């Protein structure tokens, strides 16, 4: 027995594990530690422990991770045998993920979804998904990339279905699972083909192989790139691979939709930037036009699709498709400016969407009209603290000056013009013109004085839900409180104010995203 142990100890001594930079890995460790703690705390009996302690602990782990990220904001080092890299892009995007996570935790605090699915699981899944995003954008080789992608995606499939007794939530989860698996499979196929062509999985080695072997016109490699393009476009909801987005966004619990809209998008574009602008940069002349065409299709489809939608979540889903098109323009040009513009837009997109979703969730609980546009009709007079953030957010998404959205779009257009894709800049402008058609409709509804008779506020969550198979652990699940939730107002107001602040004083955010482009020494 003891000899067996000894031999095991001896053998582990012989196997040289990779050097692990724990300091660099600490943001990820904090999140994964949070997952374990939250899952355990979710098993506690007292109601307080489940409803307050669990989200509190999730918040603590997110804040700890945020602190650890900021501590290493300007680090530039490889972790764990070159499979992960902590650099400007990693830290910048991690801050965006964590900000989205914190906001989502606040938005979910008293939501229906965690009550339905048990708090421990809900928040643990959300944290796991964030861990997946971190792995995805820190990844330096395709194996880690795929690992991160699945770690990000699978919890999301489940999260979409957490309002278990609402059919549309289940439908959304199932659809996302099926179509998402097709997307993942496509991406994996593509990665495999690229590996076949280059013989390596690391980004740097892939780039070297492309340069050394002249793979830019190699059928195998280009076939792989085509599949990778499709797989990633799927994750970033780029048309025509966007069709899951409206259905899933609309069906998923609204806090989860908010999380998907901002965090998943940031992760997808992070990996887009990294993989295409580092590993596949040699084939830029081939994939650039293809992505530009996809961006054009996306901008048009997203914007015209959003017209005439009466569900705010569905409208924002199409809007997120259109915005993905704008950001793809930043990837297409493959310049330092393009990277900065994309990351800046991701940050602006985060604040714009969270301000809007905060208001939508608040009205969803107050009115019982769900996310229909009538839920916000006339709130200009009755709820100014919700009306203003939503108004500002809509103006910002449309790109009106003095908002973060304007600066972001301006940077993207500048990047396209500088990168010889001026026509793509024009497409962005035309898209923004069309987008006014649906953003202004929301503003008109907010400030209209036509009285919409207030539905009984209690109708919010207590519509008779079907019995849950197996029964809830402690009797019927009660509806969340219908009274105005301060944390929702807080999120809306803070992000609404941030939109204006960034729109007027963009310099601090410019400086912040400046470091993201330091990861792309190969670009001009």
């Amino acid at each position, binding site marked *: 027995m003891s000899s067996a142990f000894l031999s095991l100890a001896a053998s582990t001594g012989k196997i040289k594990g990779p050097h692990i930079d724990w300091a660099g890995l600490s943001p990820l460790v904090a999140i994964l530690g949070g997952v374990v703690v939250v899952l355990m705390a979710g098993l506690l009996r007292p109601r307080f422990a489940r409803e307050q302690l669990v989200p509190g602990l999730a918040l603590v782990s997110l804040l700890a991770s945020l602190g650890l990220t900021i501590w290493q904001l300007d680090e530039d080092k490889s972790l764990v045998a070159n499979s992960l890299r902590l650099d400007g892009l990693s830290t910048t995007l991690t801050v965006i993920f964590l900000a989205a996570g914190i906001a989502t935790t606040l938005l979910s605090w008293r939501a229906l979804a965690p009550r339905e699915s048990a708090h421990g699981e809900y928040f643990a899944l959300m944290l796991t998904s964030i861990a997946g995003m971190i792995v995805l954008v820190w990844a330096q080789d395709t194996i880690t990339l795929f690992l991160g992608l699945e770690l990000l995606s699978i919890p999301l499939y489940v999260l979409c279905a957490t309002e278990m007794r609402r059919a549309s939530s289940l439908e959304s989860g199932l659809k996302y699972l099926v179509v998402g698996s097709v997307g993942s499979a496509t991406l994996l196929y593509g990665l495999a083909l690229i590996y076949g062509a280059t013989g390596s999985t690391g980004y740097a080695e892939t780039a070297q192989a492309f340069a050394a072997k002249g793979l830019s016109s190699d059928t195998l490699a280009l076939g792989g790139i085509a599949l990778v393009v*499709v797989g990633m476009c799927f994750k970033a909801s780029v048309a025509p691979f966007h069709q899951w987005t409206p259905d899933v966004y609309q069906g998923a619990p609204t806090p989860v939709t908010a999380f998907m809209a901002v965090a998943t998008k940031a992760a997808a574009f992070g990996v887009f930037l990294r993989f295409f602008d580092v590993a596949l940069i040699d084939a830029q002349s081939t994939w650039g036009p293809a992505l530009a065409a*996809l961006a054009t299709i996306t901008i048009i489809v997203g914007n015209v*699709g959003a*017209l005439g939608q009466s569900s705010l979540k569905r409208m924002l889903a199409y809007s997120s498709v259109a915005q993905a098109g704008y950001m793809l323009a930043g990837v297409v040009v493959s310049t330092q400016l393009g990277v900065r513009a994309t990351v800046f837009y991701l940050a602006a997109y985060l604040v714009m969407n969270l301000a809007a979703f905060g208001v939508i969730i608040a009205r969803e609980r107050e009115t019982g009209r769900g996310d229909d546009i009538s839920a916000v009709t006339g709130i200009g007079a009755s709820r100014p603290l919700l009306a203003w953030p939503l108004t500002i957010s809509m103006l910002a998404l449309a790109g009106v000056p003095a908002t973060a959205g304007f600066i972001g779009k301006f940077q993207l257009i500048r990047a396209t013009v500088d990168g010889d894709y001026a026509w793509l800049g024009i497409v962005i402008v035309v898209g923004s013109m069309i987008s006014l058609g649906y953003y202004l409709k929301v503003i008109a509804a907010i400030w209209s004085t036509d009285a919409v008779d207030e539905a009984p506020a209690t109708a919010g969550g207590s519509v008779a839900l079907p019995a849950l198979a197996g029964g809830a652990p402690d009797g019927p699940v009660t509806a969340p409180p219908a009274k105005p939730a301060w944390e929702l107002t807080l999120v809306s107001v803070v992000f609404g104010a941030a939109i204006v602040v960034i729109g007027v004083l963009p310099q601090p955010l410019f400086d912040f995203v400046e470091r993201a482009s330091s990861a792309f020494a190969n670009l001009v």
Partner: protein
Amino acid sequence: MQTTAWLVLGLPLLGSILIGLLHKVLKGKAAGYLGTLVLLASFVCAVLTLLSLQDRSAEERQVVFVAWDYAKSVGLDAQVSILIDPLSLLMMCVVTGVSTLIHLYSIAYMVSDRGYNRFFAYLNFFVFSMLLLVMAANFLLLIVGWAFVGAASYLLISFWFRRTTATSAGIKAFVINVVGDVGLTLGTFFIIKHSGSLDFLTTFKGAAKSFDGSNADLTAGCILLLVGAFAKSAQIPFHTWLPDAMEGPTPVSSLIHAATMVTAGVYLIARMHPLFELAPSAGDVGAIVGAVTLLVAGTIGLVVTDLKRVIAYSTMSQIGYMIMGVSSGAYVAGLFHLMTHAFFKALLFMAAGSVIGAMAGNQDLNRMGGFRKAMPFTFGCFVIGGLALSGIPPFSGFFSKDEILLVIGERGGWHWALYVAGYVGAFLTAVYTWRMIFRAFFGAAVPEAVELEGGHLHHAEVHTNPNGGEVEDTDVGFPGPEHHIAERAGEMKGAMSVLALLAVVGGFLQIPKVTSVLDDFLEPTFADSTIQHSSNDGLLVVGLVLGAVLGLAGIALAYRVWVQKPGTSAVVLERFKPLHTLFVNKWFFDEGIDLVFVRPGAWLGRASRNSFERLFVNGTLIGGSTGIVRASSSAVRAIQTGLLRSYTALLLLGLTVVGVYFLVSA
């Protein structure tokens, strides 16, 4: 000095904003006193600036203060800067001083008006705009001030916005003023094209060099500047808005359409004199237009029966003198007349306002008469203003008008025609001024005057618009149910007394051979003038005597026609029927402009609306693009079936297309 200069400009703006923001808080006369005090402070600052400027040596009396660079890049030096020199200071003092008095007058005159606070907010804004115009140190700010003044004038003419006549008069004034703005702006382009600078002093210093060999551009530029000046100063053919502008409240007529805004054209020509001297033909255009205007306006003034419109035509005519003067090199004389005219014309309007108050809003001369006993103070003011306007010694108008004509006479050549026109105009002035006075104050007392003598101010049962007779809206945009006369309102009396005093003594600044205060004061600004003034003592004496005699003769004629033999005017009218028709219809300028510009413009507008706009813009461009968007929107929604199999199918289709593209490029 820098601080006081900026305060002169900033205080009226502050007043306007304060009154505007606090309009719900300010009760009673508070807004009026606030507005007046702000302007008084502004006037004090202007005087302090004047004093500190006089402490400097003559060469250093042109100072530019820059607040910040607005846009300073290649080929453009747009700064927010003000120019303080004797010319701008003279204008600043006149504008703030007269404005303070008119604000004081308005405190009482407007007190029953429902829009009291709005009125003072507008009035302060107007003063700010006017100061911006005269203090601007570059073309950019000049244009901004120019346009602001036009906007303020529009707001105040249409102040009683429920009167259709008032709103259409406001629109007319604004449109004509915008034509002037366009002229000014285009003229500026002609000038900076060669000078390369927006700054006045830089442009003037380099003018001789930068326009060497491109005199046509300079002449074109100056004539375009003149278009701006004519539009603002109501010179032919841009004058038709001024009589209609009398729709505004009387203090507005007094301040804007007599004392300050309409003199902007005179200021502009005086300010741009280095350019006009390089383009003498532009100056000649100005001089001739001024002379024509003063004659035409004088003849119309003879037959108009609306009290305020008589004074309005008189204003046009007097500004004709000033324009003629500054265009012929009589800068100091023109500005001297500008100043004295501001005093006596503001006074005349205030007195007219008082009479209109006694008539319960009616301004028809035909219905007035015999107010002499009922309103002794108003009558006194009217007489002082009338004597000054007619150029009777020793009132202020006598010295200033004759000085303009003296300089023109000295120029010789064809300027003699202008000289003659000026004296004919002087005679006409005396006749129409005293016709107005005799008809309103002499003769049999009308019922309103009798009522007032009995100690009661007449009030109309139903308020009607004096033009057109429509019943007034009594809720908003209404002159107020009560009227006020100078005899009963201390503020009005105070303001009129000060102006009456100034109208008497204002001329003593420049008594020929005795005093030359303005000459000395303005010397630094006009030191670079190349027009030499020969002093011709004989002409001086002839002019002075001629002016006095013609003035007195005019008064005598008016006395004979309208007091001694009241029927005479009807007889004369019968004999010169065609001439009367011409004058009464204001030389058919309105009809002419309507025929030449308005109708073809309207026709063109209608035609293009029916064809180009409706078919091409609305139908093809707008309808087409929204149609495309709409169609693609339904297409996108149509493929969004909600069925997983169709989503996957589209995914695979997209994948195929992308794959084919990459494989083809391989």
